[in-house]
């Protein structure tokens, strides 16, 4: 039995880390979209990911809807949940302080999780990989085709968002809300619509993350919270509000986890990732790409 050269191992760790990191990055992007418009950390973000996976299982596996159509339906369905979240949990709050808004998202995440348990039960579900499960062997480094889908979707999301925020009227309006909601209101932007849009958009991205992750790691109703926390960590590491920061933060977090699991101690791998996160925060209190001057002006 031949052993694996160290260099190949290292590459394998990096491939794994980048894949998981891409998922974290997508969750972090979802956090940022809502944060930029509302300054809320939407702790129900992980539930979007969970829903993305489970809805896809229902639509694609149980109803037998073909993949591209199932993909669309799933994203649409979860987007609707995002819209409902804003309408039913966020907007009714009359005196919104940041802390009450966060508690509202925690409450919403508990409800979503509970409803998902009622619908799908407690057991995990599987989804067929989008293009089969035959691994690609690149000179000793194994790549699952699904990994490429995960990373590919991250790229698509990143390009799509760049286009959206720079080229479309809605995107520009949303950026304006992020910079200065009062001024945005003055020039006639409906901030409420923008908040709604931000929830819809980040739910959609969460769903994409979930349905690409499910063929790799299965999905069950209880998975949301952990993914939310990893994504939150990635968003903070990269600098809240910064999209390049979210992607960087996610990938770095994934890499640290994979490398410390492979090279140091797998029992402590989450701890290593968090210690590095803390170290970064103590040196740069606004994350790697965050802007300290901007955060000073944020209420929270």
């Amino acid at each position, binding site marked *: 039995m031949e052993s694996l050269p160290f260099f190949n191992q290292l590459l394998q760790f990096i491939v794994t880390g980048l894949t998981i990191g891409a998922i974290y990055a997508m969750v972090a992007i979802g956090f940022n979209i809502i*944060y930029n418009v509302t300054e809320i*950390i939407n702790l129900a973000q992980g539930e979007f990911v969970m829903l993305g996976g489970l809805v896809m299982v229902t639509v694609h596996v149980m109803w037998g809807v073909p993949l591209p159509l199932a993909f669309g339906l799933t994203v649409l369905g979860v987007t609707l949940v995002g819209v409902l979240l804003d309408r039913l*949990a966020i907007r*009714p*709050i*009359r*005196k*919104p*302080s*940041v*802390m*009450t808004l966060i*508690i*509202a998202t*925690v*409450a*919403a*995440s*508990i*409800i*979503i*999780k*509970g*409803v998902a*348990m*009622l619908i799908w039960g407690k057991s995990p579900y599987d989804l067929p990989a989008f293009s089969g499960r035959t691994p690609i062997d690149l000179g000793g480094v194994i790549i699952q085709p699904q990994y490429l889908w995960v990373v590919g979707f991250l790229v698509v999301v990143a390009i799509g968002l760049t286009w959206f925020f720079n080229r479309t009227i809605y995107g520009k309006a949303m950026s304006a809300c992020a910079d200065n909601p009062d001024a945005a209101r003055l020039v006639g932007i409906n901030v409420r619509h923008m908040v709604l849009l931000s929830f819809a958009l980040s739910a959609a991205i969460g769903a994409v993350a979930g349905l690409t992750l499910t063929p790799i790691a299965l999905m069950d109703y209880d998975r949301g*919270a952990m993914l939310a*926390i990893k994504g*939150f*960590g990635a968003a*903070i590491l990269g600098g*809240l509000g910064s999209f390049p920061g979210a992607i960087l933060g996610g990938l770095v977090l994934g890499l640290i986890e994979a490398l410390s699991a492979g090279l140091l101690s797998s*029992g*402590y791998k*989450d*701890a290593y990732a*968090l*210690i590095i*996160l*803390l170290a970064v*925060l*103590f040196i740069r*209190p*606004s*994350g790697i790409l965050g802007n300290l001057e901007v*955060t000073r002006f*944020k*209420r*929270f």
Partner: protein
Amino acid sequence: MLRIHKAPMLAGALLILFFPWIARQLPTISHYPDLMVFAGIYTLITLGLSLLMGYAGQISLGHAAFFGIGAYVSGVLSTQFDCNPWLGMLLGAAVAAMVAVIVGAPSLKLRGHYLAMATLAFGIIVNIVFREEARWTGGPDGMIGIPGLSLFGLALDSAEKYYYLVWGIVAAVFLFSVNLIQSPAGRALRAIHASEAAAAAMGIPIARYKVIVFAYSAVLGSLAGSLYAHYMNFINPATFDLFFSIKLVIMIALGGMHSIWGALVGAIIVAFLSLEWLHYFEEFEVVVYGAILLLVTIFMPEGLVGAPAKLMARMRR
């Protein structure tokens, strides 16, 4: 301000005093003193957390760590070193204070969500240590055989006896906190909450106050942890995980962030909801819990204790 507090404090004290007797008369709630022990333990943590979050305006999503430090220091010392449980409790508090100062000094410079993440990370790291250092802590399985407490030769071996111990401590801490809030130190904390720049301009050493209140809340968390360990005679890492940290925040949010009463009411309500009442909803339990939380957030943003005050204000008008 003390005038406002005196009447409900007296009423609360009497209720606490006679509650076990009342419970004994009603078989359906005869196990409530047992629940109240845990409610009291939670209250101890939320009293500190309320000062840190509601009054000083800081965030901690990692307080389960201090709860755990108290429990494990007490547990390890009393099972593996035959240390007196009371001494273990004190040492636990000292360790918690030390950790709070070391972690708090750099963390509390962070603001808002960054502070939330830093404390969250701290909580998770401490939990991983509890889980991984199995030689001391028993690992994920937990640790069995932690002795109970006894006071002047009287073993506190029943729910009722422990109830009086826990609520006696809660009462003392409550009084201490009420005094503190109404003192210059309490005003300094609220000043930091309102405006750090102005507080500094008034000569308030912000960093020091933040760390002190963080350490104070850590010590209370640790005391609660030790009380928990010696009552359960068993601890495991899952009790001190990040979901418990979030539950603590939910307690003070539900009760009312801006008042020390909120800490008390929130802890008791959440303890009873999660340990007893929600069971009746069976598989709908989770959804009902979330719905209650959401409804309170929407309709009573000041928390449960804010509602009567608001009602009174409206009636006066």
